């Protein structure tokens, strides 16, 4: 149970470069009124960032940036499981339903095909 000075410094550095981008834009922009165009642009950020995070998870093979490749195939169980998950999300709008269906789909696919 010890903390080496080098590691502490590393963690503090990581903390700063993560924490500052998380609060500073919010803090600086809150005190001024936003251009309506900018506000509309910012409202597109959530769907964009979500899709940008999700798509590589579903459509590429795991294994680091170097070994990554497009993985659209019936062998891609994450992608297959995402289909009932998307449908459930669209129809039920339920968080839990969507997540449970996705997890169950992946589990069943692994059980029967894996």
């Amino acid at each position, binding site marked *: 149970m010890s903390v080496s000075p080098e590691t502490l410094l590393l963690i503090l550095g990581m903390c700063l470069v993560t924490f500052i981008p998380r609060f500073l834009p919010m803090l600086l922009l809150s005190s001024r009124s936003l251009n309506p165009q900018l*506000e509309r642009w910012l409202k597109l950020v959530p769907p964009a*960032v*979500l899709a940008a995070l999700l798509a590589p998870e579903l459509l590429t093979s795991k294994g680091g940036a170097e070994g990554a490749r497009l993985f659209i195939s019936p062998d891609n169980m994450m992608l297959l499981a995402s289909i009932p998950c998307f449908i459930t999300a669209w129809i039920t709008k339920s*968080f839990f339903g969507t997540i449970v269906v996705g997890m169950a789909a992946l589990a069943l696919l692994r059980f029967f095909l894996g």
Partner: protein
Amino acid sequence: MNMSVEQAGKFSPSLFFEGTRNAVPIILGYLPLGFAYGVLAGEAGLSVLETALMSLLVFAGSSQFIAVNMILAGAPALSIVITTFVVNARHMLMSAAMVPFVRNWSRARQILFGFGLADEPFVMNISNFAKKEVRYEEALGVNVASYLGWSVPGIAGAITGQLMGDLSPLGLDFALAGLFIALLVPFFKERRELVTALIAGTLSVVLYLAGVGRWNIILATLAAATIGLLLPIQTKKAQQEGADASTGEATSAVSTTSPASTDEQNGGQS
């Protein structure tokens, strides 16, 4: 809910715990990931305390995984910090996107809330914000529960030093993808959001495969939001006015609590 008491500035525990309940899917997804991080950190030579400190002070899953891998590979600390900045640069956009909803909060509240703005609490919160009036306590509850849901399994992983068995038969590793899907799909009601998401997803994959490393998320987000804004897409209101009976039925079926509905009202005013 007693609004008059809340608006007097009193911290409402009931709203806070409503937020923590909303974070349960996030905690579920974090559980195996956090645990795996703790195990990996131990293998990279971090002590239990160091492993815990990183989760508690950084709270950024993907960059913690990358950092631990870089430590394992003997990378210098400065390069790890720079990589962390690149990986987390997207948070600047996410933070800015929060502005319309948090601008009346005090600076201290914004800073505390900002500390917990990892991807999953961000999207959970911003979806809530778009749906209804969300108070600070509830938003903070989402962040705090996510924070603990990430940190505690990491510490457990560091202490036990081994993975908690193979969880893949349970499909638990789909939890975060499932959460992202659950949060993303409501945006699809609005055509501009749908197109923006499709562009962002495509660009993110292309950039990732092209080897831009961890820049893919922020680059794809910047480009897609910009293209999405410029596209000549009809607003939902205009669509509905011109809609015939069949499409009218389709749109009304999904009209209740859309994150995009408030968006469109604002867009219409501008």
